[in-house]
Structures are given as structure tokens and as C-alpha cells.
């Protein structure tokens, strides 16, 4: 068989050495073309990102020029006096995203743990589909549901209870003192948490299933409990991807616009309380873009958009550094 194949190849080459050479050259050329086309695609994405950032900076130049660095920490947002500062929206964006992470990450971990280790086989498919269905709900639905259903519920039952029971605690209680209106940071954080749970939990579930069975079985064999296997074997093995999944969710929480706009209350107030209405960068832009009646107002909004870019970038840079440090500590493991 081998001999025949050899002789056929030899015959081919003997018959058409020129053709083979041609073909090689053509292949090489096509390869390069493909390479260039792929590079162009990648650069297209990168350049549009860069273009977006620069056009934000350009559009916001008037605001940056007028207010300078104080734009970053000025809590005023006064359309009449034409005095704008980004502190309240930045604070609101960070606090709501942080709340969403505080709720969403442990819950997502629990869901992934349930789906990979606890649930009986027949239950895993339907439940994980249902959880992923949460990701398919458009953000405007979250916003409307939040405003018409969750906000009244929070205002009637949750915020009064928090105000009564946690409000009197010194220092810590300041977080939970506020009027029972339901709108505010806490409600926005909850809605955001529901929105990021499907992303984080499906990444976690996916990577938990990639852990080699031998590793887990060995741990079980020496008498580990399920929790110990997940905490000491599965989680260390998958931590890079888990952190990546968490930041995927955080990226969504930071930039989420519609749902937050509905439930955050749109008040340019700087308070420690989670029960008071506040504002976020995305919500401010969405709310006020059509109302911006002066060029400095419009410019301030675009400058806010640029800051959202910067905030997202910084957060992801931190994520990147954390991942690098993790993989360094783990040696060649990651």
C-alpha cells in the first residue's frame, strides 16, 4: 500500500513539478491574504473602539476644558447654573455594580455548584436552561418590571424593614437609612445582580465541568466531602476562568443603561444610604441627552460617556492584573 502511494506521489511530482511549485506559491499567497483579512477584522474592532473613545473625548472637550480635573470630583450637576461634575454618576455606577457583584457572585457560584455537583442528572439541563433564560430577557423588560413590580414591593416591605432594623446601627446603619420609596441604589443593585447571574453562573458551570474527573475522584476517594472537592480542587483549578466570568458580569453591570435608569431614581444626590435615589453614568446620559439645551450640558454628558469608558477600562485592567498575579503565583499551572 505504502509503496503504491509513494510511487504515485513520485509519479505526480515527476509529471508536474512546475504545478506543485505553483500550488505551493498559491497556498502561501492565500495564507498571507487570509492572515491580512483576519488582521483587518481584528483591527476594525480595535479601531472602532479607539474611535469611540476619541470621539467621546473630543465631544467632551468643552466640559473638560471648562471644569478641568474638578469635573471628576465635583458633586454638582446643575443645568441652570451650567455647572457640572461627574462625582455622583461615577459613585452611583460603582456602587450599583459593586452591589450587583456582592449579590450575584455568591449566588452564581451556588448555582454552578448545584448544577455540577448536587442536582440529579435529569434536573441539570432544564435548570441551567432556565437560568440562562434570564440572560435572554431584554434590559428594558428588567427596567419596566423593576419599576412597576419590584420598586413598589421594595418600598412597601423591604426598605421600611431595613430602615427600622438596620438603620439604628451606628456607622453601618447609615447605609440603610432612607425614605420608603423603593427607588435607589439597593433596588438597582438587585436588578443588576439578576441580570449578571446568568452570565457568571454559566461561565462557572462551563469551566467546572472541565475539571478532570481523575482529580475529583481522587479527592473523593480519600474521603473529601463535596464542598471540600469544590472549594479545594475545582475552584483552584478553574480560578482564572472564574475570575474572567466575574469580570464579564462586572462589565455588563457597569455599562447597563435601561434597567438602571428605570429603578435608580435619577437624583443627583450624594448620600451614603443605599435606599436613597441616585444616578449612574449610563442612566444620566440616557435620561438627559434629549434635554441637553446648552452646548456645555451636551459636552458634559459626552464627557460622562468618556469617563464610563475609562472606568470600565480601569476595572478590566485591574482584572487583568489580578489574573496575571494569580497565574504567576500558580507557576506554569495557568
Amino acid at each position: 500500500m505504502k509503496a503504491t502511494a509513494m510511487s504515485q506521489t513520485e509519479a505526480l511530482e515527476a509529471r508536474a513539478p512546475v504545478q506543485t511549485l505553483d500550488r505551493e506559491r498559491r497556498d502561501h499567497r492565500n495564507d498571507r491574504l487570509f492572515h491580512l483579512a483576519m488582521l483587518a477584522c481584528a483591527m476594525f474592532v480595535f479601531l472602532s473602539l479607539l474611535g469611540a473613545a476619541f470621539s467621546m473625548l473630543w465631544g467632551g472637550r468643552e466640559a473638560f476644558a471648562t471644569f478641568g480635573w474638578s469635573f471628576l470630583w465635583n458633586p454638582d450637576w446643575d443645568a441652570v447654573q451650567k455647572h457640572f461634575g461627574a462625582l455622583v454618576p461615577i459613585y452611583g455606577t460603582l456602587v450599583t455594580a459593586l452591589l450587583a457583584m456582592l449579590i450575584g457572585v455568591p449566588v452564581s457560584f451556588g448555582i454552578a455548584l448545584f448544577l455540577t455537583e448536587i442536582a440529579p442528572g435529569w434536573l441539570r439541563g432544564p435548570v441551567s436552561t432556565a437560568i440562562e433564560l434570564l440572560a435572554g430577557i431584554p434590559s428594558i423588560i428588567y427596567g419596566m418590571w423593576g419599576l412597576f413590580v419590584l420598586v413598589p414591593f421594595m418600598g412597601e416591605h423591604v426598605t421600611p424593614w431595613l430602615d427600622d432594623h438596620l438603620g439604628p446601627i451606628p456607622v453601618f446603619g447609615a447605609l440603610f437609612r432612607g425614605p420608603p420609596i423603593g427607588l435607589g441604589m439597593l433596588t438597582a443593585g438587585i436588578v443588576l445582580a439578576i441580570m449578571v447571574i446568568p452570565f457568571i453562573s454559566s461561565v462557572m458551570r462551563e469551566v467546572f465541568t472541565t475539571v478532570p474527573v481523575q482529580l475529583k475522584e481522587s479527592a473523593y476517594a480519600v474521603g473529601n466531602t463535596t464542598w471540600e472537592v469544590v472549594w479545594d480542587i475545582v475552584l483552584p483549578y478553574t480560578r482564572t476562568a472564574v475570575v474572567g466570568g466575574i469580570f464579564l458580569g462586572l462589565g455588563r453591570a457597569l455599562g447597563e443603561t435601561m434597567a438602571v435608569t428605570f429603578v435608580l431614581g435619577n437624583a443627583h444626590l450624594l448620600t451614603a444610604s443605599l435606599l436613597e435615589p441616585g444616578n449612574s453614568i449610563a442612566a444620566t446620559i440616557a435620561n438627559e441627552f434629549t434635554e441637553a439645551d446648552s452646548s456645555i450640558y451636551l459636552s458634559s454628558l459626552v464627557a460622562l460617556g468618556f469617563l464610563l469608558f475609562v472606568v470600565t477600562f480601569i476595572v478590566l485592567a485591574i482584572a487583568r492584573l489580578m489574573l496575571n498575579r494569580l497565574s504567576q503565583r500558580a507557576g506554569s499551572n495557568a
Partner: protein
Amino acid sequence: MTAWQRRQAKDAVAKVLATAATLFGLFWLAWILWTTASKGLPAMKLDLFTKMTPPPGTDGGMLNAFAGSIIMSGIAVLHRHADRNRGGHVPGRVRAAIPAWALLRSDSSTTSCFRAPSIVIGLFVYAS
């Protein structure tokens, strides 16, 4: 309590909490679906799909909104399809060719979350 019992207890607590977390997730899904279904189903009439948005106080449908959604997502899908055909799957060799501008190298899952928030895209499109 022996060490073994303590470990067993911890395991049981973890399992209960994980199950509770799953129920927590499903609870919101059920609540949202229930709200949209119970409030939306009574409005499902033929008029909804065949008539335009009415002036306040009169009957009508949402044909214009449906049409808008279909046209916009149709255009987006066509673009996406074209993008895919040009090479949605970027091989590793090509990725390596992209200079490592800070964090933008597409070699980990963090990159996929570096997407500009939709509101920024909106501003970009408006401003340029």
C-alpha cells in the same frame, strides 16, 4: 462534635445554600415571566399586530414598533452574518500577530467583556 461531623455539617450547609441560590435565580425568572405574561396576555389581540400606535385614548396596536424591531434586527443579523463569513473565528496565529497593546490582546476571556457599553456606542453614533 468530631472533626468528621463538622466537615459533614459544613458540606450539608454548602449544599443547602447552593440549592437555595438556584431557587433564588429561578424565583426571579418566574416572577418576571409571570408579570409579563399576566399583564401582557390580555393585550394579545389581532389588532396589536395589525394597527399602528394610536393617539392617547383610542384603540390601536403596535405594528410600527414590531416593524421597527424586525427591520433593525434584520439589518444587524445580516451584518453579523457577513462578519462571520469574513472570518468570525480568528486563529491563534493571527491573534499572536496583533500587537499587545496593553489589555486588548484577545487571548483571554477578559477581552470579551471589554466591550463599550451600549450607551457609549449610542453617543458615538450620535456624535460622529
